[in-house]
């Protein structure tokens, strides 16, 4: 059951590039020496989300909230348990990729790419930049060596690396440069959609800023659509047009960035924003900061009702009894809280 009624298969509103509906991912738990199936880890439990063409959708939440799993499901890197993933191809045709076989999926992979967090483990140390960045082209049937090496040189230039680096190995590069190699590889097949999973989280402050600017330039230049996953709220406020907040496999709130930060509707969003220490010592001294109690619950044994209720300062009896639905409220915003209208929550922006 999806909260947002799915329209008939394979149609999308004109401005939407990717849409997931009622997405679920359960990992089975096996126990005992017979390895019997005793339960499920509900990593993703009913997530619906539209990403519009050309926008950056930020996804935030604590570790274990399922943000990376959503991205991996959208690219079919994991098999989904239930749900629909609609994707508008470059040709304009909308396909439901959730049901495609690996072979059918292959041409679509050129259009959907991913950038990873760790620039050290995501690049094969035994491959040169030419091989690393050129590999997607080889896989997608280009065997013209000259063409590939021209294209790789061009891509390196696009991401701000020198084309002469073609025959070097990743170890010769710093973390920020490696991240750019990963970006060049993601761009190799002219995708329209890129999922960036904590793409700048491992980098130093000054390098992260450079790479964020690069991602924004590329978005403008190639008309890219981003799913930008991060735990850095300052970063997401800077780069995202809209933000989704996840907790324990569920989407708690989706809103345009400005509205989310000035006027959060879900208590978890408020708590997340309050937890971020600001580079502003005077502000920190005056700001009321009540740290969120406890830790994210175990997804194998989630709390009843609203999964956030054990940590929620506004919880009422109804919250532990009834699972709130992700519903539309005023201003086209979505929130999964029984009391969204009654609470007046404090944002990070005055």
């Amino acid at each position, binding site marked *: 059951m999806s909260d947002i009624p799915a329209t008939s298969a394979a149609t999308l509103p004109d401005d939407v590039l990717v849409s997931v509906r009622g997405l679920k991912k359960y990992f089975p738990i096996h126990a005992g020496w017979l390895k019997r199936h005793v339960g499920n880890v509900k990593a993703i439990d009913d997530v619906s989300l539209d990403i519009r063409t050309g926008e950056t959708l930020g996804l935030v939440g604590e570790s274990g909230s399922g943000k990376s799993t959503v991205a991996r499901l959208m690219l079919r890197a994991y098999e989904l348990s239930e749900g629909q993933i609609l994707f508008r191809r470059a040709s304009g045709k909308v396909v439901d990729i959730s049901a495609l076989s690996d072979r059918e999926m292959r041409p679509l992979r050129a259009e959907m790419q991913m950038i990873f967090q760790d620039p050290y483990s995501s690049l094969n140390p035994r491959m040169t930049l030419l091989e690393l960045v050129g590999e997607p082209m080889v896989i997608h049937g280009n065997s013209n060596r000259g063409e590939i090496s021209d294209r790789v040189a061009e891509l390196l230039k696009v991401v701000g690396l020198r084309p002469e680096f073609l025959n070097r190995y990743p170890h010769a590069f710093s973390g920020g440069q490696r991240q750019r190699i990963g970006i060049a590889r993601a761009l190799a097949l002219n995708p329209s959609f890129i999922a960036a999973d904590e793409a700048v989280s491992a980098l130093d*402050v000054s390098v992260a800023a450079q790479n964020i600017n690069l991602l924004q330039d590329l978005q403008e230049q190639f008309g890219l659509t981003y799913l930008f996953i991060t735990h850095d709220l300052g970063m997401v406020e800077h780069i995202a047009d809209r933000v989704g907040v996840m907790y324990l496999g569920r989407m708690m709130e989706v809103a345009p960035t400005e509205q989310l930060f000035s006027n959060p509707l879900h208590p978890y969003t408020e708590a997340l924003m309050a937890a*971020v220490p600001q580079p502003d010592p005077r502000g920190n001294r005056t700001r009321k900061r009540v740290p969120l109690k406890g830790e994210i619950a175990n997804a194998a044994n989630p709390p009843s009702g609203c999964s956030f209720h054990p940590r929620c300062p506004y919880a009422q009896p109804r919250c532990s009894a009834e699972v709130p639905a992700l519903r539309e409220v005023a201003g086209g915003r979505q929130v999964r809280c029984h009391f969204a209208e009654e609470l007046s929550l404090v944002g990070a922006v005055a």
Partner: protein
Amino acid sequence: MPPERLLELDNVHVHFPLREGLVKAVNGVSYHVNKGEVLGIVGESGSGKSITARAIMRLLPKRAVAPEGSIRFRPRSGEQYELSALDRNSRAIRQVRGQHIGMIFQEPMTALSPVHTIGTQIMRTVQLHKGLSRAAARERAIDLLAKVQMPRPAQMVDAFPHQLSGGMRQRAMIALAISCDPSLLIADEPTTALDVTTEAQILELLKQLQSELGMAIIFITHNFGVVADIADRVSVMYLGRMVETATVDDIFYAPKHPYTQALLRSIPRLGVDQGRRLPTIPGMVPDPFSVPSGCAFNPRCAHMVPGLCDVTVPPEKMFGLQMSRCHIAEQFAAVQEPAHV
């Protein structure tokens, strides 16, 4: 040392002779920590912030050489140690570690022993340094776990590190570090691997323990938000040198070094519109074999004065309690407004 001093570093050097050349990881660092204060040390990777901390603990890699500099330390007990003269395995340094200086690390999973319960690890430390019996040590371990707000301390004392979440492991490590009431706690990126909500809890806990136990903290981080939250004074490091040291307010609202200013501008901040592009620092941190001559920051600096900055190393200039290692630091003296507005 003045009476309020706990730790004083004077012109500390740590070099690594490698096949490719000499790496001056720490190149003349001087700072002090007073009793009961929190000194934040910020810098990008490779700036030497962690190596300096390890030099204090004498936990440097074996191939490191420390050609000059002195590190003096006077814990609550009153005796004075010349840490820089101690051998990494000497009896004296083993007394200082654990007993007078506690240390917590970024990754508790690799810092704690995976094959001993957290209780055992804490008990060994207090049995060694405080001479407690097994039973008394176990009592103390449970008390310490309660003090770091570990839920159900009497049961958790028998838990192995892998059974705990990241935040709980970090609490266990803090319990271990404070087990002997140290005068100084060195915290090396203790919240970097944690979620913001857990980070806020750990910072709150550290602040509370600090005021309760009256210990000083050296807090190493690359996160300006964290340092603004916890530090009394802040030092900024770049390529093995301290470029600026000041009170936390002066660092954030009146920085006198172009590197500090540029770093502060490049952080995306909640609620501050920084335009579509983030201001960045051009180029990248040079590799340690080819540190620029003169001021190490000069090739990336917007205020670089040719013939001066690329020739001579700037001296440490003092403005009251604020130190800036910049030739033209006077020029920034008038800045009173926050650098990011």
